[in-house]
């Protein structure tokens, strides 16, 4: 997902008896669905895990501008160009809401940016894949935003108020993003042979990375229990992945495109699709920095930050000068 493999405290979930009074009171609020707000007492582990999760989510939005930004200047029509620009602008806006939500936990945006640029903080593996054709804009909207929505919808109801509220705004825009992606695919699938081939090729390249977005399978997902108890994760990775496959396969059929998985088969018993094995070696390699575009993505963000240092510094200095002038005048 946009926040994959977020490490929780790693200490395991405490029983009620092991909790002190603050912790019991805190857990009671969560269990009674009362939102935790910035100034409320919270366990250090909760604060730390959320900082990681929300900042990772924010970083994903920011880095996520790049693969689609790659096609704004080449969009095939002016209408598509404006839609794509608006979409990428929304993503930057999502990054902004999320950084603000994370700041309420006591970390500055500059600190988070520093963590991203140094490679300490992660962002979603999906954005380390290249966008090679126009159809990739369709596939990203349809599959990547589709997968993101799967876990962002429940996050609207998560325990931390600022995160939940940011997610409400984000979800509204994400569903528009997914529809525009599907619409691109739909037009291509009904288009010329070359357009159909472009759409199929994009599905072939994006299908498996999209499934990897949900993170490692539950058996290997060591950090989940505490996040479930704190209600900052509501569904397991495999549960969401299954839901995504079940939702998306009929859409691919509607488009007349083939999902690139020879093991994909409807299973009456589980009322869902069985699907093939995911290449987890690839996933862990991409997470570790060895995906096709990790260097380019991080390099682009580092360059933007370094090249823009003079700009940010000048605005700060100017604001100080203005404040000093104002003070002198008073």
């Amino acid at each position: 997902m946009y926040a994959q493999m977020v490490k929780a405290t790693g200490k395991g979930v405490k029983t009620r008896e092991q909790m002190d009074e603050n912790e019991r009171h805190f857990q009671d609020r969560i269990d009674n669905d009362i939102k935790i707000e910035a100034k409320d007492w919270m366990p250090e582990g909760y604060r730390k895990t959320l900082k990681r999760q929300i900042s990772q989510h924010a970083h994903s939005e920011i880095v996520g501008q790049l693969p689609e930004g790659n096609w704004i200047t080449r969009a095939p029509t002016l209408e598509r160009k404006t839609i794509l620009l608006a979409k990428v602008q929304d993503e930057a806006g999502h990054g902004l809401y999320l950084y603000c939500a994370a700041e309420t936990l006591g970390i500055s945006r500059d600190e988070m940016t520093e963590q991203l640029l140094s490679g300490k903080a992660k962002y979603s593996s999906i954005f380390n894949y290249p966008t090679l054709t126009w159809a990739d804009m369709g596939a990203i909207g349809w599959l990547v935003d589709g997968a993101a929505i799967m876990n962002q919808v429940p996050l609207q109801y998560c325990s931390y108020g600022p995160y939940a509220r940011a997610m409400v705004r984000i979800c509204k825009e994400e569903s528009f993003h997914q529809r525009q992606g599907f619409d691109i695919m739909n037009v291509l699938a009904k288009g010329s042979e070359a357009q159909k081939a472009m759409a199929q090729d994009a599905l072939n390249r994006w299908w498996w990375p999209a499934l990897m977005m949900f993170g490692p399978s539950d058996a290997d997902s060591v950090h989940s229990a505490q996040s479930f108890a704190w209600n900052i994760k509501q569904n397991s990775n495999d549960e969401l992945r299954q839901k995504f496959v079940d939702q998306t396969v009929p859409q691919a059929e509607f488009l007349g495109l083939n999902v690139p998985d020879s093991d994909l088969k409807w299973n009456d018993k589980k009322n869902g699709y069985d699907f093939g094995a995911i290449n987890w070696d690839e996933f862990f390699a991409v997470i570790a920095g060895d995906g096709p575009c990790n260097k380019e993505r991080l390099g682009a963000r580092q360059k933007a930050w370094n090249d823009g240092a003079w700009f940010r510094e000048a605005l700060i200095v100017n604001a100080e000068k203005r404040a000093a002038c104002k003070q002198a005048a008073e």
Partner: protein
Amino acid sequence: MSAQSQKNLQQYVLRLADNALIIGQRLSEWCGHAPALEEDIATANTALDLIGQARNWFAYASELDTDGRSEDQLALLRDERDYLNVLLVEQPNGDYGNTLMRQFIFDIWHFYLLEGLTRSADATISAIAEKSIKEVNYHVSRSSDLIIRLGNGTEESHGKLQEALNNLWRYSGELTLSDALDDEMLALGIGADLSGVERKFQAAITRGFHEASLVAPKIGYMQRGGKTGVHSESMGRLLAEMQVMQRSHPNLTW
């Protein structure tokens, strides 16, 4: 309307369309690469406004087109010599200071040009100008504010902006230089009076530079040519990128 008048009117509209499209295209190159998140958002937003305005102008140019070309065929399939934007808007982004300076010069001029066009005898032109000027009013306040802050920021930011101004000012003359088509449109009550635009533009931009502690360089000869399709070398590459899909997959729906 005679065929020739219709063609001339279309050429006039295409100048407006191309200015908005090409500067919007340049701005959209920044997407994801701006110096701060707020700037990514604001730059994309400005690009979006301008490309939106371009679409309105192209829709009108398409109505006037005797060959029945669509908005996209006009925007994305003409040859370089048929693009009629001023040279300023096609200039490469350079650093963020250069982009902001290009925008500041453009915004101020664009505002007064549109102000003139709101009084156009052509109802479509005045309606598009009326709609666009609201957005451009915001563009002017944003770019003016940033130019003034950066001009009075650090020594480095002042230096970068002065350098950008030194590079770009030679393209400012063309903005208000009338040619036969401008004169014809003015005489018909359709076009803006560029001498009036020039007075307002010069007054506003001089004030802006003064507030930003910047000085416009003395230019012996102002560059010109864009309005008649004679562009800078960088224009060809901009078009190659912008047109690639339409050129390699012609006559398809997207």
